């Protein structure tokens, strides 16, 4: 079964600065997708960015970009020009290319999250 590890329970950054959230995962598959979701205090789960394992080019969405290192099984999220509205829990997630994932339902496998604090 796949596992996703986020080693930073909490990160703090000054407004307007850049912060990087780390994520590593374990899989034996070659084709999969990786996602970053944001959960603000309102509890919504909001998709931030996604990356296909077969694409070498790192995904970017405005101020958000990833550093995808397939061999190292690493998928970090960089937030540039941090804003107060970026304060949230950030979850890294993995989705298998296989419909049946060995006893697990076909959904996202999440890391335990990183709580991002933005200092004004």
């Amino acid at each position, binding site marked *: 079964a796949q596992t996703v590890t986020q080693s930073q329970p909490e990160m703090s950054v000054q407004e307007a600065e850049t912060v990087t959230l780390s994520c590593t995962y374990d899989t034996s598959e070659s*084709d999969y997708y990786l996602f970053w979701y944001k*959960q603000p205090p309102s*509890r*919504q789960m909001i998709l931030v960015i*996604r990356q296909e394992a077969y694409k070498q080019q790192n995904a970017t969405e405005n101020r958000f970009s990833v550093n995808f290192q397939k061999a190292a099984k690493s998928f970090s999220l960089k937030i540039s020009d941090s804003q107060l509205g970026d304060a949230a829990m950030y979850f890294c997630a993995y*989705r298998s290319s296989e*419909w049946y994932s060995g*006893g*697990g339902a076909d959904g996202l496998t999440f890391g335990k999250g990183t709580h991002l604090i933005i200092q004004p």
Partner: protein
Amino acid sequence: DTAVSQTPKYLVTQMGNDKSIKCEQNLGHDTMYWYKQDSKKFLKIMFSYNNKELIINETVPNRFSPKSPDKAHLNLHINSLELGDSAVYFCASSQGTGVGQPQHFGDGTRLSIL
């Protein structure tokens, strides 16, 4: 217009009761999911449902059962509620089962068992 809506947002009930959480999506998606987020914020897939095919995470007790009256709804029924069922439950949907399809989440239902 809420894409994925869950009701109720909060549910407080006593141990042993049976309860349901409703989920509706107006995105025209054909795949829906239920996730559980525990007190430590850990999210775990419970079920996925596509074209009348239900896939169950083997760790989910059989007291939990999803019911889909139509493609736009996937309700979660829980029998004989236990203290450990206290959590936030999220419904989600996606178009197809393609691995890259983004999942759209509802706002969650906080279930508290007394």
